[in-house]
């Protein structure tokens, strides 16, 4: 809702009262979701430029030069509020919107990822929400023919009243085919095409910029309803229009509807727009001010030069795509909206898109945490502790979810979901890896360190497969910016991600901010764990085959690279044993992280590593188990001594210290591998050997892999059916 102050400023600038339509336009564009009015001021902390960045944050998708005349594109978006109310349609239309961000730059959409956070599935209502969201993503994403290449999920009761559905879409475009979201030339036509405009999603961005409350009745018309067939036909039609270079400017009609889409096009072009709302093809919506802010799905807004108009019409008609020429680009700097010849809105673009009152926000203090491990005690039974972690909802097998997603359509999928990253082949012959991570428990305890370390974990995912990191996209999910403690979490998290991007010189080329993820439930305010979702892309050297984490040979050595400290606060071990996380989360150590990254990449380049895993959630124990669970082999280890300062077996097994890897190296490659580690001054130790027997032998105790596999694979299925 627009505040009194905002209304006052806006009226003063305009010099007159607003019409109803104008007010609704301003309300949409000045919402947090559209204007980033609480968040934008911090983005200077991010590294956003690099030689290969062809298009940075700001339009539908960021573009990154991957060589051979091709750019990879990426967009990351959230559809949290809609998915909380209607998981099936909310999540499905989240997929649709993110795809359109990418195709609006002229890209072919080549991959999807989904990052989900829900309440614990042992409660039937959470399980139902999750399975409906997954079905929404599955039905929509599979139908439009874009492979799912990765994702991530986490469960915590803090997501029970505010689930998170973050979507990544990856694209690819030849450099000469890039389309920009700009209305450059006055006199050019403005064409809407795709689905007809309906009542769904009216005011969606305003809904998304407020706390969900049980006392306020959010009419479900704020939820967008997707139609995957319409999206597929839209994609096919757009491909034809792009092939013939008929489009001068293009924008997805997303949050803020036509008001935002046309406003943004004019804003980036320094032009104006004149729209005739009665020409917009509609279904069931009659009020012109609804038409202008409706967020109905599967619609695009294109700027077309008059000379191309006939050809564009021919192609749209051939494909049976609803369309209309609804206006033209002007040079007056105004957004003029007419209905049946009458002007119902005339706002300066500068006021509409740029004029938002930057609100004062107060950054509270993050409560300090202790490094005390007084809660910690050595478990009586290590085997059952590992089994508890293996079957924990935050670690167990996710195939119940991802087997519902088509991973192979388009025939470019080199590594399926279930590894450290998904890998796609691009048309220039290069392989790119995509991963995403966020440990919201670390972020809850220390948003800055937790965010930087979540990003570092994504980095290790990419590096363990042998790829070099190239770009980041992010989706920052937090509570209300109007509350100092919540705002502090956001700001600290941005600092963490900013640090990481500069420390590792990786540009951030796409992102989204979703605030107000808190809810009033029975008079109680319930806020999500701070969840900065980080997506990282990496590129492999030519001819390199991605390294998986499954053990591949018997009688090879398993090395632990990097030091381990007693960092169990914030760990999954603590969460499972104590029932909550507390204390200082594991430290962010960029220097060590860089050293281990360089050493692992150098070893990969020389072909020395057969399988490799990042040590992350659940520590060495879980990293090792994951290497064995999808392999035919087992291992036999001696864990009595590992480098660092841990002083018990459980600390060695479950510490979540960053910058560590596990590598399977055959006997003959050992000397060279060790010399590389020595060169980088890295501590390492040989944990033991891979074995033919399917047993996880940790020295002091053993776990039959068959049983572990069952626990692992049934972790979600036992709740979801």
């Amino acid at each position, binding site marked *: 809702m627009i505040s009194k102050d905002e209304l006052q400023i806006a009226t003063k600038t305009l010099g007159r009262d607003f019409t109803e339509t104008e007010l609704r336009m301003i309300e949409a564009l000045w919402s947090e979701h559209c204007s980033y009015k609480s968040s934008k001021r911090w983005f200077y902390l991010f590294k956003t430029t690099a030689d290969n960045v062809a298009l940075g944050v700001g339009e539908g998708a960021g573009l990154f030069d991957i060589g051979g005349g091709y750019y990879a594109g990426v967009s990351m978006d959230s559809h949290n509020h809609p998915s909380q109310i209607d998981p099936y349609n909310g999540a499905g239309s989240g997929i649709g919107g993110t795809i359109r961000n990418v195709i609006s730059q002229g890209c072919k959409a080549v991959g999807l990822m989904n990052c989900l956070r829900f309440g614990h599935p042992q409660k039937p209502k959470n399980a139902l929400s999750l399975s409906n969201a997954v079905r929404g993503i599955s039905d929509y994403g599979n139908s439009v023919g874009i492979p799912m290449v990765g994702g991530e999920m986490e469960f915590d009761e803090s997501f029970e009243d505010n689930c998170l559905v973050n979507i990544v879409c990856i694209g690819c475009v030849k450099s000469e085919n890039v389309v920009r979201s700009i209305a450059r030339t006055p006199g050019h036509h403005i064409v809407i095409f795709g689905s007809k405009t309906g009542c769904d999603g009216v005011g969606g961005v305003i809904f998304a910029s407020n706390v969900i409350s049980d006392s306020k009745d959010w009419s479900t018309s704020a939820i967008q309803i997707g139609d995957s067939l319409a999206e597929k036909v839209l994609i096919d039609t757009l491909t034809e229009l792009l092939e013939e270079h008929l489009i001068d400017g293009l924008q997805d009609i997303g949050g803020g509807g036509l008001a935002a889409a046309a406003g943004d096009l004019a804003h980036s072009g320094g032009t104006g727009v004149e729209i005739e709302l009665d020409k917009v093809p509609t279904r069931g919506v009659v009020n012109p001010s609804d038409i202008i802010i409706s967020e109905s799905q599967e619609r695009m807004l294109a700027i077309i030069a008059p000379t191309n108009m006939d050809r564009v019409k021919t192609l749209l008609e051939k494909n049976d795509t609803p369309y209309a020429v609804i206006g033209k680009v002007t040079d007056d700097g105004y957004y003029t909206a007419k209905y049946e010849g009458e002007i119902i809105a005339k706002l300066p673009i500068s006021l509409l898109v740029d004029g938002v009152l930057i609100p004062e926000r107060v950054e509270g203090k993050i409560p300090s945490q202790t490094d005390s491990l007084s809660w910690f005690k050595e478990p009586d039974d290590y085997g059952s502790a590992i089994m508890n972690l293996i079957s924990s909802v935050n670690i167990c097998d996710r195939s119940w979810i991802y*087997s*519902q997603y088509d991973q192979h359509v388009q025939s470019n999928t080199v590594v399926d979901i279930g590894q450290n990253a998904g890998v796609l082949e691009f048309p220039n012959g290069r392989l790119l890896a995509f991963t995403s991570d966020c440990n919201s428990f670390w972020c809850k305890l220390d948003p800055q360190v937790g965010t930087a370390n979540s990003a570092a974990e994504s980095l290790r995912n990419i590096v363990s497969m042998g790829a070099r990191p190239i770009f980041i996209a992010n989706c920052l999910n937090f509570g209300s910016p109007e509350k100092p403690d919540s705002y502090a979490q956001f700001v600290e998290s941005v600092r963490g991600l900013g640090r990481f991007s500069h420390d590792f010189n990786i540009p951030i080329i796409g992102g989204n901010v979703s605030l107000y993820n808190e809810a009033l439930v029975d008079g109680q305010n319930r806020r999500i764990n701070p969840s900065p979702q980080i997506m990282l892309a990496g590129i492999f050297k030519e001819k390199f085959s991605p390294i998986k984490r499954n053990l591949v040979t018997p009688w090879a050595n398993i090395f632990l690279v990097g030091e381990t400290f007693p960092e169990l606060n914030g760990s999954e071990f603590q969460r499972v044993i104590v029932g909550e996380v507390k204390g200082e989360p594991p430290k962010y150590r960029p220097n060590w992280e860089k050293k281990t990254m360089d050493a692992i990449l150098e070893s990969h380049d020389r072909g020395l590593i057969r399988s490799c895993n990042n040590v992350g959630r659940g520590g060495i124990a879980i990293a090792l188990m994951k290497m064995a669970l999808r392999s035919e082999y087992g291992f036999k280890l001696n864990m009595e001594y590992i480098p660092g300062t841990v002083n018990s077996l459980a600390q060695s097994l479950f510490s979540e210290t960053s910058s560590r890897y596990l590598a399977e190296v055959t006997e003959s490659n050992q000397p060279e591998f060790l010399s590389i580690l020595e060169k980088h001054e890295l501590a390492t130790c040989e944990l033991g050997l891979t074995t033919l027997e399917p047993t996880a032998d940790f020295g002091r105790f053993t776990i039959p892999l068959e049983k572990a596999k069952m626990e692992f694979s049934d972790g979600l299925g036992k709740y979801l059916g």
Partner: protein
Amino acid sequence: MSIAVIRFPGTNNDDDVMRALRQIPAAKPYLVPSRKGLAGLQDAEGIIIPGGFSYGDYMRAGAVAAMEVISAGIRDLAEDGKPVLGISNGFQILAEAGLLPGALLPNVSARFICRWVYLRVSDQPSIFTENLENAVIRLPIAHAEGNYFCSEDYLIALEGEKRIPFKYCNAQGEITEDSNPNGSIENIAGVINQKGNVLGMMSHPERATRQILGSTDGLEILENFVRAIR
């Protein structure tokens, strides 16, 4: 060898099939949007109906596409003896059109399933499985309605006439209940018509045509398809 690759609104494996066929020197694939109707099939010496979600699968999968004019043209060419291959949604369309017996019901899990599966190739010769007799091949599946069902009579006929070229199996080639991904009767993964020139299969040969994708077993099936055009 002109091969018409049919695209209904919502088909989404057409590019993959075109790309796979281009790897085969003798194949001359061309894309036919279904709205072209019979005219689109004029030069076709073989037809492939790729997977996807024709008309959104908003009704029974394949049901709307089977009613299109072009489907009548496909029937004519099939009766002429030209090879016809329906993959996934293409199989559903052929079954709905009555060109193949039986029906594809929702998976027993009631969920969409995407994964790699093993298929046991029948030891009986067919134009589609030349040189693959008795082999165990690996292909991906991706469907929500792939649970093949037919009446007892049909089943006896299919078995008797050796018209079941593929059955789901495990890595060792054993046809077990565990290896059946969708509940298909007798683990049936594909069926052939009486004449032997129309094949429907739920798994995707076009997605297993390059080593980098994890298998080239699908390429052999497509090569057989091209060879079958005479």
